[in-house]
């Protein structure tokens, strides 16, 4: 593979992910609205929100320090950095050896860490409440993520994303092995928790008793809020890409030709729509859990991950 092409594709796929992310979230919102017999805002509504927020002035609390102003940039940068590592369109890209799946997880934790600090900075009770809950959920989903990575690495012999995708492509039977399916279930629950979706957190509410993510970013406005929201949407898209491309890798380009990349884009869109529909149906069917019931949900996903590893050991 000639190197420059690889880098161009890597940058192009990151740009694509950034452009698609608001649309994906708009689609999820629209699907949810239709499922709930509402008309719903158009799919492109998030793009309009971004344009509005980027044009508005920022209001910063007088108690806030430089950290409050730096956090949106750190959150955005770390999420975009993840976009370079996740196989959205093609494998293996030149950045594959820069970071593996563990780096992806911990880069996202870097963003969460700064956002949680920024929640404490203005000195309001809401921000602290959001930070405390967000870090609790993040910490408790960590073991599940690690074990799901373990299960995938057991199969592929590597934690690098390109390797994992290549391995499943070479051995299609692995994709339907019980180990993979259980790991998929575990990661799906983590996707809900990490992205503040129902039943862990409700992205559509500002009711103080139930808020997690929204409470933490309550003090943000203008371009800072736009960066945080965009990063959060990008995170949804990246988790979907991981779920779609690690477990069902067909369609991901292994050669950098126009035809392969076009096919990769088409399959990616199809996977995103399927996952968006799954999430919308799921979110319509379940109610928000009490905060102290969330650990039980995460424990279920942890058990799934443990089973995934046990099965991987047995099948090997």
């Amino acid at each position: 593979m000639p190197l420059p092409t690889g880098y161009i594709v890597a940058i192009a796929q990151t740009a694509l992910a950034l452009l698609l992310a608001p649309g994906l979230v708009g689609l999820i919102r629209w699907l949810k609205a239709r499922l709930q017999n509402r008309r719903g805002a158009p799919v492109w509504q998030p793009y309009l929100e971004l344009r509005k927020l980027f044009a508005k002035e920022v209001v910063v609390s007088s108690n806030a320090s430089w950290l409050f102003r730096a956090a949106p940039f750190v959150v955005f940068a770390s999420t975009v950095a993840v976009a370079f590592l996740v196989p959205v369109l093609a494998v293996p890209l030149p950045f594959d050896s820069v970071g593996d799946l563990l780096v992806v997880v911990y880069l996202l934790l870097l963003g969460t860490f700064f956002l949680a600090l920024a929640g404490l900075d203005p000195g309001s009770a809401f921000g602290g409440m959001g930070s405390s809950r967000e870090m609790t959920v993040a910490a408790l989903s960590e073991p599940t993520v690690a074990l799901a990575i373990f299960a995938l690495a057991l199969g592929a012999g590597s934690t690098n994303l390109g390797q994992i995708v290549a391995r499943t492509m070479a051995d299609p039977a692995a994709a339907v092995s019980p180990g993979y399916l259980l790991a998929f279930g575990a990661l799906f629950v983590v996707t809900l928790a990490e992205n503040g979706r129902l039943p862990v957190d409700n992205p559509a509410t500002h009711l103080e008793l139930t808020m997690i993510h929204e409470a933490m970013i309550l003090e943000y406005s203008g371009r800072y809020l736009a960066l945080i929201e965009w990063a959060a949407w990008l995170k949804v898209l990246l988790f979907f890409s991981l779920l779609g491309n690690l477990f069902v890798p067909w369609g991901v380009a292994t050669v950098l030709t126009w035809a392969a990349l076009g096919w990769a884009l088409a399959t990616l869109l199809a996977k995103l729509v399927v996952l968006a529909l799954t999430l919308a149906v799921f979110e319509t069917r379940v109610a928000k859990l009490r905060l102290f019931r969330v650990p039980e949900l995460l424990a279920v996903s942890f058990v799934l991950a443990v089973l995934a590893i046990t099965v991987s050991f047995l099948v090997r």
Partner: protein
Amino acid sequence: MTDLTLFTLMIGGYVGGALAACLFSRGALARWLAGVGAITGGAAALALGGGKLFDWSSASFTWIEVMGETSIAGPLQGARVVLIVYPLSALFLAIVGAIAIPAALYSIGYARDWEGRRSLRTPGVMLNLFLLSMSLVPLAESIFWFVLFWEGMAISSYLLVMTEADEPETVSAGNWYLGMTQFGLGFILAAFFLLLPPDGSGDFTALAKHAATLSPGLKSLVFVLALVGFGAKAGLVPLHVWLPSAHPAAPSHVSALMSSVMIKLGVYGVLLFGLRLLGGGPAWWGGLVLALGAVSALLGVLYALMEHDLKRLLAYHSIENIGIIFIGVGAGMMFLSYGLPALAVLGFVGGLYHTINHACFKGLLFLGAGSVLHATHTRNMEEMGGLIKRMPRTALFFLVGAAAISALPPLNGFVSEWVVFQALLGGATIPKREVAVLMPVAVAMLALASGLAAACFVKAFGITFLGIARSHEAEQAHEVPASMQVAMAALALACVVLGAAAYAMVPALARAVAGLAGLPPASALSAPGAVGQISPLSILLGLVVLLAAIPMALWLFRASRALRVSDTWGCGRIAQTPRMQYTAAAFAEPLRRIFAALYRPTEDVSIDFHPESRYFVQSIAYRAHIVPWFERYLYDPVIDRVIAWAARVRAIQSGSLHAYLTYLVAALVIMLGLLMLWGS
């Protein structure tokens, strides 16, 4: 400079610093002389150890003798002065030196607070002696000298802990520390004496030779004794109880040295016995070390979460990080026994890398906590807040340390935890049922510990430095003197560099264990058997580029640049007071409830209502406690038993000289009788 010059400079620096502190007991000169002596010694130690570690020319396993063998006449006959720098000891010597420099520099500013209140003599002398003995422990090459330096380290650090002995808490902390360290010494001595060859030579080479002839059962006994002895120094659960009280009681630069360096010599001790003296053992040795490490990592962070005393919180995190180090070391020992040297090296590298990294960021965090203590005169986080505005530099350095200890990329803590993770993942290739169970459990515990550590440091940094000041002292806080800032800046820089320079660190660390206990020599060592690839330097550069690109993109796309400063939104309430902020206790409350089975929390709330109406609350007092399992159910019964025995023994203490002489004669007769029975 030759090794001998560096060695002489190291001893000279420490001894000179101690002598200077003896001569001057007050004033800036005393502070500077003691500090400069310690810095000189530390720099020489770093140059000597680091030089040997990175010396590419001596890539094979070589022994570099710094001092030849010298016989001492008189009562110590037979004991030989042998100090040797070999790769593993070079590594620990370098760590001592690397942390000694910033800690000593910091002490120059920190000791200014004591002027006029207490003599600077004891802290100055003891700091230098503490550093001297810590530098010599890894170099000691025979039982006598090892134990001498080990005890020198224990006693000098005890005296440093007691610097502020006018507080009853400190005295109790000192007693715990002295008790546990002497308890550990007993086990270490027992382990040494079981290894003693018939000719009585205490040389480590002779011990290793003799150990090869011992039965497997006896070797295992020696290893377990050593693990208990050194585990007590390292702070492994359940021998950790002294650590959260002794480390906070000491002056902050001493806390930093104890947490960053001293407890790491416990790791050195375990490696010395496990690899060098005993030459590796059955798989369960490694499994035991790994299991204790995993339990320590998780319990350490869980107790840290409930702690609102900044320095105690950091001390509990030392237990967590020692756990992570032992996970790596234990995995390495396990793989070694299964005949997987490449993977074993990966485990040891992970453990040793984390040893260095923890030394840097925990040193940094303790110095940062010391600066906060210096500025606010309290360790209670609930009385802090908003310090980022009054102490901006300290806050920035503390933030770097907090991010590093939370294993956030691209800092050093992440890189070494990644290596440990890789070792555990690699271990999955071993077709053994016990490994198949142990590895996933260890991975999950390590992941949970690192996630909780991130939550804990959001609390530690957020409550301490962000928001509004919660007390008058926090409002009046001021930035610390330049010497203290420089010390913290150096360690913060080290956290960044050690992460980015992984490509240089990993081979150097692999050399530190190469050739020990059947591990391949460094020349034959291929790339360690990791199952993944990362490039921390690229991650660092990538993040920097992205951070610079975002504001540029915002400017390019003409995003609004308007900014207005206004009040925090208070649901319509106008005045915002610090009382409305989240507290450290509130921050940790969800986790306290989730892990209630461990904590068994009890709370008492007493509310004073307004006499006219119960709708108006005048004051609320809230107290929460958690069950200290180890203290209450393990140590208290033992201590009670010991005290009861001591009371019984008191009966023979008559105070009469005649009675004591009778005891002496009786003891002599019994000894002679025993000798007659067995001696012939």
